[in-house]
């Protein structure tokens, strides 16, 4: 096989599990990646007593790794308690697939994000409403852990690419330690903005490059 995917990725891509729509779902969450244009919708049906995920399905407007990750992450989450499902990470999914090429890691992030969103919405709906906290550097760092450097497949926080974070009057300025003409500069910038601009107290996100 000339494609840079594991056998497992190909298998899940060819015959994805848990595909489709749950008509009377408790939650539906959609995540889209501005970086590659992929989109993934996830449906959850939760047992209100045991809080176990009874049914989980997904739909994908995405590439092979997106479809494969949607397939495996729904496999992993099925039957789990909702609060345990929240702990499943993109890395768990990627590992379960036997790894993904670095440039494709951001697709697995998308499937994990959809799962986390769905869980969050479910928890909010069912009385576990979190209060809106003001956006801090810590919150921003946590969000940026989902932005991948496509060259390495490692997130930009872990790879110490965040040089500076400035929060002032609802405007967040992020300085990324990469040259502006880096192969993935445009891509990383778009992802950062997407991860932060929806926060309730954020008006604008600016991304600067250090070189």
């Amino acid at each position: 096989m000339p494609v840079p995917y594991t056998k497992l990725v190909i298998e899940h891509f060819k015959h994805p599990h848990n595909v489709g729509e749950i008509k009377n779902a408790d939650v539906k969450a959609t995540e889209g990646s501005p970086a590659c244009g992929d989109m993934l919708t996830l449906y959850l049906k939760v047992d209100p007593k045991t809080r176990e995920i009874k049914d989980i399905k997904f739909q994908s407007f995405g590439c092979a790794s997106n479809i494969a990750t949607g397939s495996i992450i729904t496999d992993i989450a099925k039957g789990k308690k909702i609060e345990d499902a929240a702990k499943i990470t993109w890395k768990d999914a990627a590992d379960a697939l036997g790894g993904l090429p670095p440039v494709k890691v951001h697709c697995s992030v998308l499937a994990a994000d959809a799962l986390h969103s769905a869980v969050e919405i479910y928890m909010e709906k069912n009385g576990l409403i979190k209060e809106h906290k003001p956006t801090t550097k810590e919150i921003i760092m946590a969000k940026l852990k989902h932005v991948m450097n496509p060259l390495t497949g490692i997130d930009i926080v872990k790879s110490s690419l965040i040089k500076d974070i400035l929060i002032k009057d609802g405007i967040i300025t992020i300085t990324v330690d990469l040259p502006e003409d880096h192969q993935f500069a445009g891509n990383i910038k778009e992802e950062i903005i997407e991860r932060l601009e929806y926060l309730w107290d954020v008006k604008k996100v600016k991304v600067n490059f250090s070189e």
Partner: protein
Amino acid sequence: MKVYLDNAASTRVDKRVVDAMIPFFTEKYAVPSSQFAHAYGIEAKDAVDGARTLISKKLGGKFPEEIIFTSGGTESNNLAAIGVAFANAEKGKHLITMQTEHNSVLNPFKRLEKEGFEVTYLPVDKDGIVNIDTLRKSIRDDTTLVSIQYGNHETGTVQNIKDIAKVVKEKGALFHTDAAIAWPYLPIDAYKWGIDLITLSPHKFHGPKGIGILFVKKGTKIEKIMNGGYNEFNLRPGTENVPAIIGAKKAIEIFSQKDVAYIASLKKRLLNDIKTNIKDIEINGSMEHSSPHILNLTFKYVEGEAVSLRLDFEGIAVITGSACYSRNLQASYILMAMGREHEQAHGSIRFSLSKYNTEEEIDYTVQKTEEVIKSLRELSPLGKEDRE
């Protein structure tokens, strides 16, 4: 069944081309520069001159020395852009090109911007066609070079380079066209049309890789961009790739317009049958002004890398303009310049044909494409309302 539909990337080398090349590896391996030293050199020189003469004639040139051999289309485009810009810098430092050019044109121009040149990147319309009036208005007294691609590598859209050349000549600038995709599928007539520089790429029409051609009309002010010896009329140093030059000559010699008509009929069949069998498709590029061998379609609600991989499982080779597939994770800049949405680029597939494809292969491709699109659309959260 194996169906290769990525001929805009590269083509199968014709057996006759390989046969013509082989003696130049094993028997006639001297270089033309040795012409004054020995008979082997003369033999090589004669062979290369023969190639120049033939290619010059086919392009509507007047002199064999107007043909410069390079390492490929990329080098030809670099030589044209950078070589002409610097050689004419005293006259002016303004250059014009188009947003949908190949990277081997765009990136030399970007480099020239860093060197103090000013570059205008002309927009295109929804079919990918540049407006000639806009071009005319963009040419200034200090414009030295206009470079407009003949046929686009991704969509097949063809520019009216005959009229473009006329406008450029009226305004007194030099005109270069990257014809790597279009020629010899479409005609060119260098002197009659007023074209100063032409880039050609023989591996796009069953010739070998590692050889490019730059036609440089006699009298065109251009300087070398690589330093070395005095080969190629002191414009392109380096040992002549004699076997590849002979291969290029052969590919040009045997290229047949009958094949072009055949390829065009395959493209028509492919498009019509896909249109009949698959809903919600869009054509990217002009149908009226188009290379006979390239068809670019968007299949709505599905992603291109997924489509191309699934087709690959069925033995069919195509490529996509999806960001997911690209090396910088950005959607095709060509489709974006044509005003397409990110979503449309996401599901774009390029089919590119050659004389070696058969009707049977096209029918198989249509059938498999229908199956793959249907299966992926069932997975997709989009377009359900439209389809029901």
